């Protein structure tokens, strides 16, 4: 009884080395004829290196096991086999037909192909066990272990960028750390329930979306690609967005790739987590602001003030002019009580006396209960131009 296991990696295409000559050369058409006769060349285009002949993988990684004490005279009456896959953390039963009961005639064999998606990195042990009964009623059993390493195919690095609004940008760097080129079939971000995601990896030109990676659809070994995603909190969560503190779950990346002859690989990252930026007790964010304003002309901005603390606040707003920014209106006005997790919108008017890119600064909020002052500088930038230019 022989028990053989092999890993069915995809076959490869045979490549030949074309050596041609011309009619007038010494060998005449001999070389060309030899190439024509070679079954592995492409008929009609023998110089094409990539042939059509499939060859089994070199490292087929199979192994044989011999059940002992058996001659071919014996008829095996019962074959019971199963295959297990053991990883560092779990033990999986792979064989669907583990209870297959069959009679195995001499020199017959049972072939079974087992598919399994490897989900873990590291050492795996494939355990194959066969138990059977010989004709004489003797019960036999053997098993065998195949140890193999699963290497990491991709290196994924992520980076978060917080926008002034509640949007979060995710940059994912995906590096191919295998030795073969990878065709990236799908790279997508599955957002957590709090977010909507917009992929920023295509450029729309005339209605046709074009990949930012150009025509190169694959990753060479050690190549890295950067994918960019924009995450927006869903409406129902946006309300509370200012309140979200600490670690939040963004979602996970789902990467599907293909290699040689469509051999498929898939990788899902664990949930990507982001440390929400700390906003302190009171968060002031800008809702609207013009990007360009005229010199010495007032303009409006809208702020949103959110109470991120656990207690109710009574706020006073002060506005301090800086070198360039001049606030219009009354400084030191009462904003009233603000309950935890609630927010209020505030329209403010200001003007700039200096041209160029100016930073909006100088807002001060004071909680009268605790006599604590929160300072807000550099909350936004505006471009200040002289009025002639703007017209």
């Amino acid at each position, binding site marked *: 009884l022989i028990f053989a296991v092999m890993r*069915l990696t995809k076959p490869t295409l045979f490549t030949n080395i*074309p050596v*041609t000559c011309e009619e007038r050369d010494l060998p005449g058409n001999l070389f060309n004829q030899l190439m024509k006769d070679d079954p592995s060349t492409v008929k009609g285009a023998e110089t094409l290196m*990539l042939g059509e002949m499939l060859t089994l993988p070199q490292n087929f990684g199979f192994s044989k096991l011999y059940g002992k004490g058996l001659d071919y005279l014996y008829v095996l009456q019962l074959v019971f086999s199963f295959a297990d896959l053991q990883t560092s953390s779990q033990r999986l039963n792979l064989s669907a037909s583990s209870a297959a009961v069959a009679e195995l005639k001499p020199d017959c064999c049972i072939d079974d192909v087992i598919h399994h998606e490897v989900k873990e990195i590291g050492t795996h042990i494939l355990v194959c066990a066969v138990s059977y009964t010989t004709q004489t009623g003797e019960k036999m059993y053997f098993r065998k272990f195949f140890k193999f390493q699963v290497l990491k195919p991709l290196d994924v690095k992520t980076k978060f960028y917080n926008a002034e609004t509640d949007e979060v940008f995710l940059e994912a760097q995906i590096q191919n750390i295998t030795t073969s080129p990878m*065709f990236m079939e799908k790279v997508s971000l599955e957002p957590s329930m709090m977010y909507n995601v917009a992929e920023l990896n295509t450029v729309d030109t005339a209605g046709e979306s074009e990949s930012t990676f150009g025509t190169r659809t694959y990753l060479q070994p050690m190549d890295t690609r950067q994918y960019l995603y924009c995450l927006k909190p869903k409406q129902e969560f946006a309300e509370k967005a200012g309140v979200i503190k600490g670690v939040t779950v963004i979602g996970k990346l789902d990467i599907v790739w*293909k290699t040689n002859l469509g051999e498929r690989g898939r990788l899902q990252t664990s949930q990507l987590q982001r440390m929400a930026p700390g906003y302190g007790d009171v968060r002031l964010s800008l809702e609207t602001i013009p990007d360009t304003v005229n010199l010495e002309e007032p303009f409006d901005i809208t702020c949103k003030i959110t109470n991120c603390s656990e207690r109710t606040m009574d706020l006073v707003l002060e506005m301090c002019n800086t070198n360039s920014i001049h606030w219009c209106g009354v400084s030191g006005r009462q904003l009233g009580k603000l309950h935890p997790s609630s927010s209020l919108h505030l329209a403010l008017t200001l003007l700039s006396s200096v041209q160029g890119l100016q930073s909006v600064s100088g807002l001060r909020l004071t909680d009268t209960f605790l006599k604590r002052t929160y300072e807000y500088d550099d909350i936004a930038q505006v471009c200040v131009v002289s009025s002639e230019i703007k017209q």
Partner: protein
Amino acid sequence: SSAKDAKSTSGEDDSRDIVQQKTQEEILFHEETIDLGGDEFESEGNETVSEDSNNFVDKLNEQMMESVIISDSPNNSEDDTGELGCLQEIVDQMEAKDNQKTQAEADKEEFLSNESETEHEETPKDISEIGTDDQASLKEDSIQEAVKEEPKLGNNVPVETKPNNVDENTPEDQMLSPSTTKPSSEAEPIPVCTIFSQANNANSQPQLFLPDGFEPQMVKSPSFSSIIETPVKYNPQVVQPSPSLSKFFGDPVNTNTLASDFFDSFTTSNFISVSNPNASSSVPEQMSSLSNGGDGSSSNPTFPVQNGRPEAGGPPSSLEITQSPKPFSQIQAVFAGSDDPFATALNMSELDRRNDAWIPSEETRNVLISVATQQYSTVFIDKENLTMPGLKFDNIQGDAVKDLMLRFLGEQAAVKRQVLNANSVEQSFVGLKQLISSKNWRAAVDLCGRLLTAHGQGYKKSGLPASHTTDSLQLWFVRLALLVKLDLFQNAEMEFEPFGNLDQPDLYYEYYPNVYPGRKGSMVPFSMRILHAELPQYLGNPQESLDRLHSMKIICAKILENLEQGLAEDGSMTNITQENRQASVQLWRSRLGRVMYSMANCLLMMKDYVLAVDAYHSVIKYYPQQEPQLLSGIGRIFLQIGDIKTAEKYFQDVEKVTHKLDGLQSQIMVLMNRAFLHLGQNNFAEAHRFFTEVLKIDSSNAVANNNAAVCLLYLGKLKDSLRQLEGMVQQDPQHYLHESVLFNLTTMYELESSRSMQKKQALLEAVAVKEGDSFNTQCLKLG
């Protein structure tokens, strides 16, 4: 890495054995794990059960190895004996076929040899070297003897001379050879003769004049002085490291007969050439005369022409450089217009010009111009700029198949293995072709080496000045091409090295105005340039390959541009007829296409798929008839990357293109592509279906057969798969004993049964009957 694989497999086996022995006394149901440390699947310890089983299995294995083939015992599985039996049948069949084939081959060769004789062009010779009365008379003697000898030999060669080429007569020639007389048979007023053999066998020509006439001229390199002093050397003095060669040279007494076997056309030219272009022109002549002598003992002026045996077809080489010496007046009579500078140019064959055209680099061009303008004085050329090739290794001859047979099948079986080797064929181009077409490439490399040795470019001759002829370069090309075909890239690189970038002045015809008067262009065959450019990529330096290919591309484009502008290929102002221009454009376009092909292949090897695909697209422009194949190829590239969608798109394009063609070939292509697409989608069942469809149209399609079998394996039908492959090998072993097929087959054998060894050996036997010494035995994994 297949060797590595084989090793690891055997390692596995070993370890299994060890484990088995260890477990011999052990009892039921215990386990043992041995980590062999590989990251791939590795075999682990194994376990069993029955008591005295270990010994038994081992014994069983051993016994079966011998017994299965021989015995018909009912104990043996019918299946297996059947299969093995079949293979043996194949062997028999093949043996039978082989015999027939050799007959056919022989016929064909005869045909070929005739052809080759009539084909080649004649090159006029100058006779400047035959200067003195003494020499002339000596020569006469020898020729007379030769004439006497001829009837005895029974393969008389009627010598027919044709007016052919214009000889450029230089005053120098006249001065040197005023009194040369000619034997009667060569009395025609033409400088070149062509031999038509009566039978299929043409003898080499009788010796026309003696090499002693060789007058060495000034040689600039001091190291050659000794050679100059002794213009003619005895063959036995040649350093011959190879035992096979020394056989021919070792014994001076026997030289005549042995060497005549060897050198029907070539001689060991001991005349290491001469850097002076004028002087060097004499060397080929020397060689031609020697070759006519056929014995190589040129130092003996009275030695008769002796042809050891009838030889098929005097190789073109000897003819090309052969000339009959003539009184100068006669030549002048014929070519009255030889003063006319265009006379020679006109005479240069259109074909030659078209094929040999090449544009030298500025530096080389200058040297060539100075050679042309200073015919009578010595042009000093830096040694660096000369091509001084030589064999870098000797005798790679060997037969891996036979070695394996010795190892696994015993001496008796190995004796049966008969392949042609360099000794068993004629020592000429004919024999060379015979070796190549019978796939005895190692022997062919060897023979090339011998023939090159005859050209004075043998072992250890590298770095010594050599003179080049069309033939010596063709021989180099064949030798190097075969080395590449044998995957002996390093060796090829070593021997290519002295050729530099194939642009040295002595590789141009213009460098030898006396030997090749009026002929222009490069001696280096275009295919050799391709080979030279492609080589680095196989040695892990594809960038270098791309560089070389790009410079080739530039020159090809330049030549095409010249043609379009109404100039000759090399940019000179030559009148070319419309017809010839057309032919030339066609030739150079296809050459440019060939360069693009190589680039695409190189880029593919570099795995730069985007550029490779672009390059293949541009190849389509040059070879529009290959469009479907190329598009399919591009599709397969995308499949290999894993980009199934784009692959599909290309396959659809192929269907569109072939739609119009409607041939069997294109039908197969479409089906094949569909099969591959399914393969890419992991649908082996459908892929198998399409490969089978192809087989319905063309049952002998090796690719479809093999691929269908591979699909079956992936469907878990090992037995069916094996049956298919074996059936295929049986059906037409002539074609299907291909490396890749055998590799698949042996892999499956290993998987299938404990008796893989015997089955592999059966394959080895089949291979032994069919394949030449170039067979890559690694695919049998007999390790």
